[in-house]
């Protein structure tokens, strides 16, 4: 049962990627045109992975939030996979390794690379086995997602120079964290590090 649900979740998560790949393959979109959708999906999935922790802290462990917490790792891994897709489009757009190396020093570019590298760690230790093996340290490693998330927004901002999208994507987390600090439930201290 859980297996089926998880499979359905992943089908849903894969649909936007399939549409992007289809648009590229059909020639309807250039690789360059897919930076934005793939990057945006990455950021949005990161938000889905990062929201339930502070929300559950603030609002208590409702059924809904418990369910969300139970599948948040899937969103995190999907975010990483979309970041990889974003990278694939980048490689397809740039074509030459030399051209990619040449622009690594541009702030809008290295922030993206660094965000991806930071995401690599939480993604690599996303399995149940890694979770058991790392025990309490697992959570601290997962927290690399926060700097990765901020870097991803900075990467976006430095390329587009539009404050709107970056702030819109930052807002849900700022709100959730504000709620966490304002309404923190003393009953479940163990969740305070989520």
């Amino acid at each position, binding site marked *: 049962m859980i297996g089926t649900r998880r499979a359905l979740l992943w089908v849903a998560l894969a649909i936007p990627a399939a549409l992007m790949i289809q648009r590229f393959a059909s020639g309807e979109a250039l690789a360059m045109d897919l930076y934005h959708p793939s990057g945006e999906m990455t950021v949005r999935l990161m938000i889905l992975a990062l929201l339930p922790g502070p929300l559950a802290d603030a609002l208590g462990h409702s059924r809904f939030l418990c369910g969300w917490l139970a599948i948040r790792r899937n969103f995190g891994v999907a975010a990483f996979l979309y970041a990889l897709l974003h990278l694939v489009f980048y490689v397809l757009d*740039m*074509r030459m390794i030399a051209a990619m190396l040449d622009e690594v020093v*541009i702030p809008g570019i290295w922030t993206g690379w660094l965000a991806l590298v930071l995401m690599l760690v939480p993604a690599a230790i996303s399995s149940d086995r890694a979770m058991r093996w790392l025990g309490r340290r697992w959570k601290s490693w997962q*927290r690399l997602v926060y*700097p990765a998330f901020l*870097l991803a927004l900075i*990467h976006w901002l430095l390329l587009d*120079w*539009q404050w709107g999208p970056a702030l819109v994507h930052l807002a849900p987390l700022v709100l959730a964290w504000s709620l966490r600090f304002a309404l923190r439930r003393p009953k479940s201290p163990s969740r305070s590090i989520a």
Partner: protein
Amino acid sequence: MTFRQNAKRSALAAAAFAALGLAVPAQADGDVTCNAGPQKAWQKMSKLKKKAWLEEWELLKMQVEGDCYEVYARTKEGQSIEAFFHPVTLKKLVVFRRGQEIYRADGFTG
């Protein structure tokens, strides 16, 4: 290391990165204005193909952006660029590379 210390460190690191990133002078390409006037007087966008060819660019895409013509292209060195042209004079006004301004025509302030 405790969780709290760790969280603090990550927050500090993120803030440091943020400061680094934003210390770059703002070079907005989101709102270039060309003061091009009514569209009736604009030249055909397809004329930019020749412009791009003369620059030895590989043309990727052309579009109207605000009141400017915008060209996405690759230079012969493989740099990915966005160039803005005046729709009436077809003059190259400003060129961006990955969010950074790399060319600006003399006297152009839009």
